[in-house]
């Protein structure tokens, strides 16, 4: 098995009722890559998946797989295999016939099919389950049958439509690791659709964040989390404390924004100029408490500081969540439980590094997070 690249060239999808599910999109997914498309329900990610697999024809643009244009080629003649959200195992066939179904469609003789099915079942750690019916398997086992069935046709591209959403948390985490391992072994291109940022960040080589039919950002997981390019990406992936203000200085790669809580500084990655409206964002785990003795003068220079009032403190075991207010801003701080209970006063001074402060132009903000 060898993965192939997938190229979406100006692809657009408007349904007959006039709703545009996917706006004009350019996207290159590399051969052998584990690529995730992350977005909330209705953002167009499933539409993209169905266009790549051939169940939908784009209203404009073209999709190429391995350099070959796929326009007008049906799902049964594309080098793709799709793992459905509800898995869609054939309930009336034993496991091995499920796995070998694609080979049956290709006219492979029965003995050969059976042998190949056994090999694939071994690959997904289901050896010896060949003659069971799908209903006799557990959720995780059924999941693996679906993977084996898709791999049996030796696809160049494997499409996965939220395949883990029906599993419980423990199993989901386990299956993440297994999927990643299978991808590494087979070097098939994986395109993984999910609304779960944990899955997307943990497994993917690259992630595309989608919102309302548009791709907001395509980057590695670290890049997406640490250096989001749009307010949507910044707020959809992970949590942010958001302040608004106006740029008062932009010198070199540093930008200063005047907010209600004083001037906050950050790296100017978005070419902001003096006078621009700006959003200042910092993640809960990047905020620290500033008490008297934390005075390393050299580091002090690079810290934004903020006074806030403690409203609530939730202990979560290894982590402590602090909920504070500064003026009309709610601030969430997330810190390691160091056992130092005395350090939480009513009035607290918060600090965060300039380099952890993301500053960008205002835009649409995610209402519910991934």
């Amino acid at each position: 098995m060898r993965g192939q690249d997938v190229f979406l060239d100006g692809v657009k999808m408007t349904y007959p009722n006039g709703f545009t599910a996917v706006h004009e999109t350019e996207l290159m997914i590399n051969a052998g890559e584990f690529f995730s498309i992350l977005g909330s329900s209705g953002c167009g990610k499933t539409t993209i998946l169905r266009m790549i697999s051939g169940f939908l024809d784009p209203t404009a643009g073209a999709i190429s797989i391995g350099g070959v244009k796929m326009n007008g080629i049906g799902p049964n003649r594309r080098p793709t295999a799709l793992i459905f959200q509800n898995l869609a195992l054939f309930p009336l066939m034993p496991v091995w016939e499920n796995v070998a179904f694609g080979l049956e469609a290709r006219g492979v003789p029965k003995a050969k099919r059976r042998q190949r099915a056994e090999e694939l079942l071994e690959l997904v750690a289901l050896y010896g389950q060949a003659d069971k019916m799908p209903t006799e398997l557990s959720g995780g086992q059924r999941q693996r049958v679906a993977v084996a069935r898709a791999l049996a046709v030796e696809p160049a591209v494997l499409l996965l439509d939220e395949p883990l959403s029906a599993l419980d948390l423990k199993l989901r985490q386990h299956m993440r690791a297994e999927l990643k391992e299978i991808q590494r072994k087979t070097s098939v291109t994986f395109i993984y659709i999910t609304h779960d940022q944990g899955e997307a960040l943990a497994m993917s080589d690259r992630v595309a964040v989608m919102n309302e039919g548009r791709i907001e950002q395509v980057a590695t997981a670290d890049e997406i989390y640490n250096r989001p390019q749009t307010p949507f990406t910044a707020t959809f992936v992970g949590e942010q404390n958001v302040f608004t203000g106006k740029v008062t200085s932009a010198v070199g790669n540093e930008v200063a924004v005047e907010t209600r809580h004083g001037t906050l500084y950050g790296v100017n990655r978005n070419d902001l100029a003096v006078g621009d409206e700006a959003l200042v964002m910092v993640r809960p785990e990047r905020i620290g408490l500033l008490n008297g003795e934390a005075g390393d003068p050299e580091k002090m220079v690079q810290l934004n500081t903020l006074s806030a009032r403690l409203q609530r403190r939730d202990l979560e075991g290894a982590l402590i969540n602090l909920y504070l207010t500064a003026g009309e801003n709610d601030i969430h701080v997330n810190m390691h439980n160091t056992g130092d209970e005395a350090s939480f006063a009513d009035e607290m001074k918060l600090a965060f590094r300039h380099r952890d402060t993301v500053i960008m132009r205002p835009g649409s903000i995610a209402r519910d997070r991934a």
Partner: protein
Amino acid sequence: MSVATGTDPIGVKHSGAQPRVERDWANAILNGYVMVFFAVMFLPLLFMIAAAFNASPTPSITDWQGFTLRWFRELPNDQRMIQGLWHSLIIAAGVIVISIPLGLSGAFILTRMRSRGSSLLYTVLVSPVLVPGIILGVTTMIFWRDFFGVQAGLFTAMAAQSSFIASYCMLMFMARLQRQDRVLEEAALDLGASPVMVFRRITLPFLMPTILTACVIAFLQSIENYNTTFFAIGGSWTLVTEIGSRMRFGLSPMINAIGVIFVAITIIVAVTHTVVTRKRA
């Protein structure tokens, strides 16, 4: 009665059970109703069966002249009856062969290709069930005679019966198809199956239990049909139309004997069907 009735000390509400006396009365009435229901249903059948073994030359159980199997023995010698039975079976087989594919295609069109014409088409396809059997029989006979020069006979009876039996089959197939998970067909297609293979390996196995049931129902509907058949069959006859015409000349217990055989066959078919479908499930 105190206010706290229905609530136990920890405040959990009881499930609202009726007082015992009322429940006993309700049970007594229900049991009585069930017994009357079964009596009305099955007593005539029992009398009919008993009369088949009575030596009296007219069907009766009050005038008991001794146990006999004579009426069963005479049956094979009655050529018209045997011929009629043979006709009935031929027609039933033909009805199954016509109704299952017709019903299946109608169901596919109505469940898969929804369009503005669907509800009109549905009304048209279901209407034979609502049309009186006599009209179906007469119109079928005239249609084939005048347009194709086909004389009334077994074939026209087959066509007339199929017109409404196919509708029954269609309704059954529609109910089944509406419960199908279409994703399974998409999955098969995605794995490289041709539409023909999708139908053969996914859709058909899913429909199989319903096809079996539809065959049984079509067979029973066809065998027992009188009015449509009588008007469409012309000079020919089936077992049922033959029995019907003999009613005019007075009854012979031979008809009871046929009844016994029919009841036995119905029970055997029904039990077999239940056993087979249960094994599949």
